[in-house]
Structure formats: structure tokens, C-alpha cells
């Protein structure tokens, strides 16, 4: 079931062709940077979410060109968020190669991201529903990033993590789901899938895998509330070290925190199982054919590397 339900090889080919054509239409000054950013092994998880949601509400129907276009747009805006994240996190590498700002410089990276946003909205051709969803995406992502930064090193818990992750990655997948089904029926499903993706990313980072391209050390250093962190800091000693790693100069707080987070991985996996079940429930209730969505949940769930 899982393999067939997520067979979007034709659509993915159409998407990569559309991305190459889009780059070709952009200003030649930015061609090299755009190729560097967009043609470097993306997993296209968000486009796959769009296609799956479309198929879930239109079983058996061909994915239409406007859905391919929506997938292109979500990929554009997703890459804007990656470019900005990489600059803010001082990341050197993404997808096994230099980040855009390391390769071309900060000015080039910032200007390229602005160019992508402008061109993304231009491509909506004034479709009010599309504009509304994409504006919602950028605005909620902006708020989520600021909230996540403001709440770093705070002794928050699992419920806070759900709010932050739900507004961050959750928003991206919520909008992807809405772009796929265009009825809002799968919005909640999308949010839960994003939450699951975010949590699996957090857990994989603590496991030391690089499957999702994230950086567990950056989050640890910056005191970002990841899923294992949210669970571990119920212990006051961990909460203290998390809030101020320099409080005990004689001890190195980061290895202590990393070990405390690792100890909570079984609990984190159990929480991820719960979130996956919530997403399954949404898929079964609100999709005409839940199979593509159930397969998508399974594909996401394994990303934690358990």
C-alpha cells in the first residue's frame, strides 16, 4: 500500500522540470545561486504532502497542473526559510554541500531569498486563495521563529514544544495540505504531519543521525526547545543546565545535556507514536481515500531513526 500510494514519480519529474524552467526564467545574475540552492538533492517532502492530500480528496484523478504549480510555490517558500535559517544558525553545510551564504556570501543569500518571495507571489497570478495561504505561511513562520528564539533556555515542557513546533514546521505542512486539497479539510492533518516531522527531526538529531539535514549541536548550543529537551528538563538539574550552561564552570554542561536528552529518547518516541496516531485519525475521518496520507505518516515516522 505504502509504495503505491506515494508513487508520484510522474509528478516529481514535472516538478523538477518546472523548477528548472523557473530558474531559467529568473534573472541570469541569480542563476548560479538558484541552481545551487534548488538542484541539490531536496527530498521534496512538502510537494509530496501536497500531492498526497490532492490524491486523498480526489482518488483516482490525475494530479492537475495547478497542483504541480502549488508544489513549486511551496518549494520556493520552503527554500527561503532554509536560506534564512542557515544564515541565522551560521550553518556551513546543507544537503552535503556549502550553504548558500557560505558559497555566495550573505548579501547574495539575503537578496536571493527576497527575489524568490517576490517571484513566488508573482506566480500566483492573483489567485486570492493561493496568496492568502502563502502569506499565512510566511507570517506564521516569522512569528514561530521569533517565538522559538524568545523561548530558548526556558524551562518549558512538551505542551510548549507542541505549540512552537506546530507553528514552525506545522505551519509549512498545514499550508501544504491546504494547497493540495483546497478545502481546508486536511489542514489539521497537515499540522500534525508537520509536528511529527519536526519531532522526528529533533529525535534524529539527538541520535546523531543526519538523515534530515538538521544540526543537533546548534540546537543544544542555542538552548532551543527540541522534543527530547522538552521532556528532559522536567528534571530540575537538567532544567538548570539548560537555562544557563555556564552556571557550573567546573562542569561541561553540553555533554551532560546531550546525555540527558538521549536518556529521554524512548519517551520521545512514544510521544511521536501518539502524534502519528492523531494524524492517522484525521486522515481516516476527513480523506475520501486515506491511503496516501497513511503512507505519508509512515514515511515520516521512520525519520526519527528508531
Amino acid at each position, binding site marked *: 500500500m505504502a509504495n503505491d500510494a506515494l508513487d508520484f514519480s510522474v509528478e516529481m519529474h514535472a516538478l523538477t522540470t518546472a523548477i528548472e524552467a523557473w530558474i531559467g526564467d529568473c534573472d541570469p545574475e541569480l542563476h548560479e545561486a538558484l541552481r545551487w540552492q534548488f538542484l541539490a538533492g531536496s527530498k521534496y517532502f512538502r510537494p509530496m504532502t501536497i500531492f498526497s492530500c490532492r490524491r486523498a480528496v480526489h*482518488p483516482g484523478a490525475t494530479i492537475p497542473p495547478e497542483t504541480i504549480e502549488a508544489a513549486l510555490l511551496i518549494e520556493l517558500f520552503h527554500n527561503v526559510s532554509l536560506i534564512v535559517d542557515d544564515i541565522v544558525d551560521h550553518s556551513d553545510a546543507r544537503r552535503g554541500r556549502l550553504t548558500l551564504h557560505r558559497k555566495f556570501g550573505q548579501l547574495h543569500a539575503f537578496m536571493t531569498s527576497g527575489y524568490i518571495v517576490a517571484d513566488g507571489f508573482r506566480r500566483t497570478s492573483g489567485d486570492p486563495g493561493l496568496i492568502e495561504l502563502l502569506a499565512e505561511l510566511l507570517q506564521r513562520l516569522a512569528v514561530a521563529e521569533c517565538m522559538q528564539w524568545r523561548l530558548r533556555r526556558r524551562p518549558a*515542557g512538551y*505542551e510548549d514544544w507542541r505549540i512552537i513546533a506546530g507553528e514552525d514546521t506545522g505551519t509549512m505542512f498545514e499550508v501544504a495540505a491546504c494547497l493540495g486539497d483546497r478545502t481546508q479539510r486536511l489542514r489539521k492533518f497537515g499540522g500534525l504531519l508537520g509536528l511529527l516531522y519536526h519531532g522526528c527531526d529533533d529525535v534524529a538529531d539527538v541520535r546523531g543521525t543526519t538523515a534530515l539535514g538538521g544540526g543537533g549541536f546548534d540546537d543544544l548550543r542555542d538552548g532551543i526547545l527540541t522534543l527530547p529537551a522538552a521532556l528532559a528538563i522536567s528534571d530540575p538539574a537538567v532544567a538548570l543546565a539548560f537555562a544557563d550552561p555556564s552556571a557550573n564552570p567546573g562542569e561541561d554542561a553540553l555533554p551532560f545535556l546531550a546525555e540527558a536528552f538521549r536518556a529521554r529518547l524512548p519517551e520521545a518516541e512514544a510521544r511521536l507514536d501518539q502524534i502519528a496516531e*492523531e494524524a492517522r485519525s484525521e486522515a481516516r475521518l476527513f480523506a475520501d481515500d486515506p491511503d496516501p496520507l497513511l503512507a505519508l505518516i509512515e514515511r515520516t515516522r521512520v525519520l526519527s531513526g528508531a
Partner: protein
Amino acid sequence: MSDTEDAAPEWPGGGLMWQAILAAAQQFVAGGRQGAAAGMPPGDATSDRLALLAGLLKSPGAAAGTADDNAGRLAVEFLGQASLIAMASGFRYWRRLMRLFDQHAALGGRLGLAGTQALSEEEQRLLAEEVRGLAREVGDAASQEGRRFALEMELLGLTLATPPDAPPDAPPNNSPRRRKRVKA
């Protein structure tokens, strides 16, 4: 409940609800007729069906034989299905609430203890987390059930708006979503 068929419901809220439904149906039918006068095709099937339904709602006793048989069947089907959907929805929600409170049964005891003895910082934090989790789950259950109920009622309404002899892809019934059967 009164034992006479035509008596008003004892619950005043129910009476108000029926008045509102009647008014809305009559307004809709009147709007449809104005539309017909302004150029819409006469004898529009949807308007006719709604007119029959509105008439039956006004005089429920007429459904038992004296009114048009099709209209009576329509009214009985519609009201019956709507009632079933509403009851099933309410039942599902309450069952889910029961299950949630069962799952968090130990929380009640811990909350009681928290009122009588001092808790450590870690215990306080865990307690607060669990209360927040329960509150979120209760809210999620209501939200999900509300969306499910709305979808089922919308689909039921669409069956009313679709003439029985219309081809499956005729407007306004041309989307796969609208062809989905209502699950009571």
C-alpha cells in the same frame, strides 16, 4: 414530551430552533421564487423540494399521508438522517471525553494530593504538563468532532440540493467530495 403530535416541544430552545429553521427555509424558498421571476428556469427542482420540505415543517401532521408522498419521504429521510448524525456526533464526543478522563484518571488523585501536600518542583512541572495535555486533548476532541459533524451535515445538505434524477457529475454535485456518502 407531550403525547399530542402537534403540541410545541417542551424545551423552549427546541421551539426557537424550529422557528428559525422554518423562517430560513421559507426565506430560501421565497428567494428562489424571486430568482425564478428574474430569469431562473421555472420549476427548479431544488426550490420545489425545499418548498415541500418547508410546508411539511410548518404542518408536521401533513406528512402522514395527506401531503405529497415524495415530499413526506424526503422530509422523513432528511430529518431522520440529521437527527441520527447529531445524536451519533454527540455520543461519539461524550464517549471520547469519557475515554480521555479514563486515561488521565490518576491525574485526579494527584491534583487532590497537590491541594494537601507540598510538591517538589519536578512534580509540580509534571502535574502542570499533564493538566495542559488533558486540556489540549479535550479541546482537540471537540474541534475534531465539530469538524466531522459539520462535514456530515454539509454532505447531507448537498443530498437535499441535488435532484434525485440528476447525473452524478451534474452541478452542484460535480466534485468527488460531494459524492461522498454520509456516514451516520
